[in-house]
């Protein structure tokens, strides 16, 4: 059904309305781990955008030109995860050689990203919604920037939280979850955006 919408709607839907972290709950493992510092989160966010857009597009091509014509749809889980893992590996090598400054900026997060549910989800959802290549591209940009946006926001809140007085039992993970819950509540408000 999403494939009937225009590109702007697809982007908004992926970025805000169905935000990958706060509404779809994907990409959480790294989310709670990295988001204690704004700097680290920004690095992770950029890395995620880069990998997601490339890997999703690559997976789209693999699915529509390799799997579908040969009726091998059931291999999509295996092929997608292998595509993403190899792409990340490959990319890490290239970036380390050609763009060392970039590598120092976010290279360490690259291997972590392989198990980031958000990327695999982006690939699957693009196929499930039967998006065209361009729609898929916009969709993956929306998803990954939604992730980056939220993780940086969240990190800035958590940095402040470190210094506030909290009951012992809430320190650390519990308050992080509750904060995420409140942010999620705020994002739920975007649901009516489709009417614009």
């Amino acid at each position, binding site marked *: 059904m999403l494939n009937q919408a225009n590109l702007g709607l697809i982007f908004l839907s992926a970025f805000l309305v169905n935000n990958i972290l*706060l*509404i*779809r*709950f*994907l*990409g*959480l*493992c790294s989310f*709670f781990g990295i988001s204690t510092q704004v700097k680290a989160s920004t690095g992770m966010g950029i890395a995620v955008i880069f990998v997601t857009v490339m890997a999703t597009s690559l997976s789209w091509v693999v699915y529509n030109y390799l799997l579908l014509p040969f009726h091998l749809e*059931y*291999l*999509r*889980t*295996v092929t997608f*995860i*292998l595509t993403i*893992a190899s792409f990340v590996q490959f990319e890490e090598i290239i970036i380390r050689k050609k763009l060392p400054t970039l590598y120092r900026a976010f290279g360490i997060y690259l291997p972590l990203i*392989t*198990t*980031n*549910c958000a990327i*695999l*989800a982006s690939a*699957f*959802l693009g196929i*499930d919604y039967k998006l065209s290549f361009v729609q898929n591209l916009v969709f993956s940009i929306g998803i990954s920037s939604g992730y980056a946006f939220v993780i940086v926001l969240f990190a800035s809140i958590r940095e402040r939280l470190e210094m506030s007085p909290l009951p*012992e*039992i*809430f*320190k*650390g*993970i*519990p*308050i*992080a*979850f*509750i904060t*995420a*819950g*409140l942010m*999620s*509540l705020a*994002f*739920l408000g975007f649901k009516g955006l489709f009417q614009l």
Partner: protein
Amino acid sequence: MKIDFKNFINGIWRENPIFYLMLGLCPLLAVSGSVRDSLGMGIAVIFVLTGSNLTISLIRKFVPSHVRIPVFIVVIATFVTIADYSLAALSPQIHRNLGVYLPLIVVNCIILGRAEAYASKNNVINSILDGLGVGIGFTIAIFIISVIRELLGNGTIMGYQIMGANYTPFLIMIMPPGAFLVIGFLIAIKQGIEKRGKKC
């Protein structure tokens, strides 16, 4: 051959993947709004975990170290696909409700984690037990959370009306924020229990 029951029990309680290790969050939060879907997810996880642990333990002596991660991933992805198609054939409704979160089990940190930490280093029987233990631990955790969420958010459990007809559901519970809040509070309680234990 020693049977490692201690590890089995560990998976369920002391090192419960969710409450203790904070792994495998993505599917947990998404699916725990409904008890029926949570049990479906739990069974899928037990199946994948046990199957992949078994297979990886079987082939562990043949897999060179530098390709072990891709090999583990392929094995896990295979079991996830089997679970995916089997569930679609057996219960299309649960399959539809689980949606994209079912194939996402493949990147669930729990499964790769157990393969790496245990199955690749131990014999088959104990690996099976390990998979079962952690899988059951996950299922129990997601069951508890889903009971709280469905009961408070919908007044039902598994679709059966539990709360009286006048009960206005605490709607936020079955929506995304509710998931975060419930887990946050549960972990706070767990931390509280642990702290009190230390004082003794």
